[in-house]
């Protein structure tokens, strides 16, 4: 098995790890010489004043105390952590990509062409009629979709529809985005097979239903085989079907949300199209819709006009969900990735993602109660505490799966190896799972031992809030 020890930098007296910038230096600079009257200015600024070499070492040490996809396996279910090609960073850094959002359309024809082509690619991949690139993240895409659904219903004189149905196993953002849009959330219990229970859906649907939000495959990695019937049932009561694109990696070139009857979808380009997650962002969450909903989309919507590419505002646009054009640099990376893979690569990415999940699921000792699954599976840690299992897996040099979610699987270990791991690495992952499965509670409770920090007390962090270096001095 691979051995692993994460770098660990410590301060001189052993009280902490790499010292804070503020502990290396804190310098107060006053604003006495400023060109403004005193009453319009602050008195002073106190921040660290360090040389470039000191800064370089500080952030390099911190990077060494961090784990990314390039460090090793990262099978974090639902989050799709896969390898990010390096050249996409280079193209996003092209000087010509750095333009101000208020530039005239005529002077940014290149940027508009890229947006136009990306709109087109995403529409084809999703089977959708129109795409907006504005939402800056997946949850922002959900919120956009909810606002579009609301505007559509209002335009049809059905603005009193006040409910959005969400399966209990759905991503938490679905619930939050629907609530932010002003909807009552109706939770849909899952069926015994882990899929949508049609009887429960029938009971939840009514003339109050604005939309059903669904991801397919769902969070258990299971394909909703009854999707055509689900779509009919939702449409029969006048509701819209919303596709959460978090799991699109499993379907590229195999099935399309538009063909399944979905009316609205968002794309997590940072999951499906390999834009790096950057410690939690930025991502981007473009939204695709069928033609009936196109008039409500926010801009950027780009079309070809007489004088080249132009931005346009759909007739009944909901307005904006981001101050400018969205997370443009992320969109550049997504375009580059899609272009690099093309039809064959996209289709193969899904094939290998699903193959890897099935291979790993077969290999581990833990029980996987639901199947057949696609790109991810949810194992149960059984009598062990899934959080402890995760901590112990860190010691084996792998990032653990998502734990304790979805709750329908006891002590859930939600695992998504993605297409980027070879068999050897999957075997290493399986060995880590199995080694931990054989360990007793004491061994698990003392983990991790080989990471930069030992087990961290998260309870006291919440009880005794210290959210800045200033609060440490109090």
């Amino acid at each position: 098995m691979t051995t692993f020890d994460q770098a660990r930098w410590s301060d001189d007296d052993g009280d902490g790890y790499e010292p804070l910038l503020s502990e290396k230096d804190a310098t107060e600079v006053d604003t006495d010489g400023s060109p403004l009257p005193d009453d319009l200015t602050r008195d002073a600024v106190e921040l660290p004043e360090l040389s470039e070499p000191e800064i370089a070492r500080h952030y390099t040490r911190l990077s060494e105390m961090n784990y990314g996809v390039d460090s090793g396996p990262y099978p974090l279910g639902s989050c799709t952590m896969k390898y990010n090609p390096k050249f996409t960073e280079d193209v996003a850094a092209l000087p010509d990509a750095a333009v101000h959002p208020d530039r005239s359309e005529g002077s940014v024809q290149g940027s508009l062409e890229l947006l136009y082509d990306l709109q087109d690619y995403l529409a084809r991949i999703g089977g959708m009629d129109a795409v907006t690139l504005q939402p800056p993240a997946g949850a922002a895409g959900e919120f956009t979709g909810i606002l579009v659904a609301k505007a559509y219903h209002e335009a049809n004189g059905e603005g009193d529809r006040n409910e959005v149905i969400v399966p209990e196993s759905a991503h938490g953002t679905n619930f939050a985005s629907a609530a932010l849009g002003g909807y009552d959330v109706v939770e849909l219990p899952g069926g015994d097979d882990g899929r949508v229970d049609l009887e429960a859906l029938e009971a939840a649907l009514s003339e109050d239903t604005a939309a059903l939000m669904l991801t397919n495959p769902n969070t258990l990695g299971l394909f909703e085989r009854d999707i055509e019937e689900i779509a009919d049932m939702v449409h029969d009561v006048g509701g819209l079907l919303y596709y959460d694109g978090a799991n699109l990696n499993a379907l590229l070139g195999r099935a399309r949300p538009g063909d399944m009857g979905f009316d609205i979808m968002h794309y997590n380009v940072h999951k499906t199209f390999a834009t790096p997650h950057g410690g939690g962002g930025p991502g981007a969450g473009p939204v695709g819709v069928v033609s009936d909903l196109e008039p409500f989309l926010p801009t950027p919507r780009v079309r070809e006009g007489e004088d080249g590419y132009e931005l346009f505002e759909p007739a009944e646009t909901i307005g904006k969900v981001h101050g400018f054009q969205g997370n443009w640099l992320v969109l550049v990376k997504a375009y580059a990735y899609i272009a690099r893979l093309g039809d064959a690569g996209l289709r193969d990415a899904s094939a290998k993602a699903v193959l890897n999940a099935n291979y790993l699921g077969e290999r581990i000792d833990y029980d996987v109660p639901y199947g057949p699954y696609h790109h991810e599976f949810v194992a149960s840690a059984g009598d062990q505490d899934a959080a402890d299992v995760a901590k112990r897996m860190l010691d084996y040099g792998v990032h653990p799966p998502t734990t304790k979610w979805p709750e329908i699987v006891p002590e859930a270990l939600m695992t998504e190896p993605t297409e980027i791991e070879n068999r050897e690495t999957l075997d290493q992952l399986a060995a880590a799972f199995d080694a931990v499965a054989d360990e007793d509670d004491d061994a698990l409770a003392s983990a991790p031992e080989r990471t930069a920090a030992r087990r961290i007390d998260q309870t006291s962090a919440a009880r005794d809030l210290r959210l800045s270096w200033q609060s440490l001095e109090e």
Partner: protein
Amino acid sequence: MTGHDTAAGSPFAPHTPEETAAMLDAVGVDDEADLFDIPDAVRFDGEFGIEQRSERAVRRELRGTLGDNDDLTEFLGRGHYDHYVPSPVDHLSLRSEFLTSYTQYQPEITQGFLQVLFEYQSMLVELTGLGIANCSMYDAATALGEAATLADRVRATSGHRVLVPELLREERRDVLENYVAGTDLVVEDVPDDDGNLDVDALADLADDETVMVYAENPSVRGTIEERLAEIGDLADDHDALFVLGTDLVALGLLQRPADVGADVVVGDASLGLPTSYGMGMGLFATREEYVRQVPGRLVGASDDESGRRAYTLTLQTREQHIRRERATSNICTNQAWVALRTAIHVASLGPSGLVDLAETCVTEARDLASAVDDVDGVQAPVHDRHHFREFVAHTDQPAPAVADDLEAEGFAVHALGDHELQFCVTDANAGSTDELVAALGEVAR
């Protein structure tokens, strides 16, 4: 490992044909297609028609496509600012341990990023004077929307009015309207007084139904607000939240938000990224008493089992993945990597560099306004105020035509109305002001 097959698949899937075959065998299926549990009726057997290209071809293509953007010297601002990004920002932020990591749900193995975010929060606390800051939002407009929903929660049963400057950038107001669409909040305008918020009009407008008063410093027209403390007092008198929009560079010099009574600070980072067609990062800081109402992620200090100080995400019970529809916000993926870049940028400047940069934004704007004012057919600044980074000028000729002519000369500026142009000058374009003024002299008379 024996290499991989790139002929007809994903170049980033490492499987050799032999490996694929062995794995299919282990899983017990004959073909990859058999792994997909998809009913025939919804299977997709078509083509997208997206051609696979080599890395080199994609690079060349994008260099060509983006090369179609005109090479203009931008004097554009109005909420999106260009400042020189020091080299360490790229070199350090692109370290792949940072770039390819996810949200720090396993803190023991992600101490590096957690500490970066803790330090970023701390920088915001110093600059705003408020007790807590989250570790990034999408942008200034969405942060403003989040501030309004926070005000709605804080004042859950008593009021619905949100007062914003009439001069607020239209797109920001639009985003705000969308964020409050699910509440009973109503957004109303406060008139402007020569570029600043009209505080006397605000005094007449504000009442006990008011839950939030929003002001920006500097304003979208670059003016520096002169009566912020009075705005803070007015909001306080009606038990409304005073939300102040600003940016990191302005915070280096202008009045400290805590000193003028701000309850929430929102805005755009303006450091760490080049102009990027509007991509940025949202700031969000507030007073400690609202900590459980804050949207987004918070990093806190704790201890690990060896007794050393360590960092972890905290108060996650506010967040959507736990509280779902009762969460403070739906924000999940945010702009963490931009926060890292911003922190490195601030650290590279240091306090003296930050104050210098902010002072440059005042003096360059003043000097450019003066030079522009000397041009025949142009008067600047329109507003008799101090300015930060940008100002509005009156043109005798129609402003859109002047802007078009300037573009033909290689300069991008804002045309605001029939006879108003807006110019933004920072450390990034200060070296080109003479050329701009010369070109303006040619086209504006």
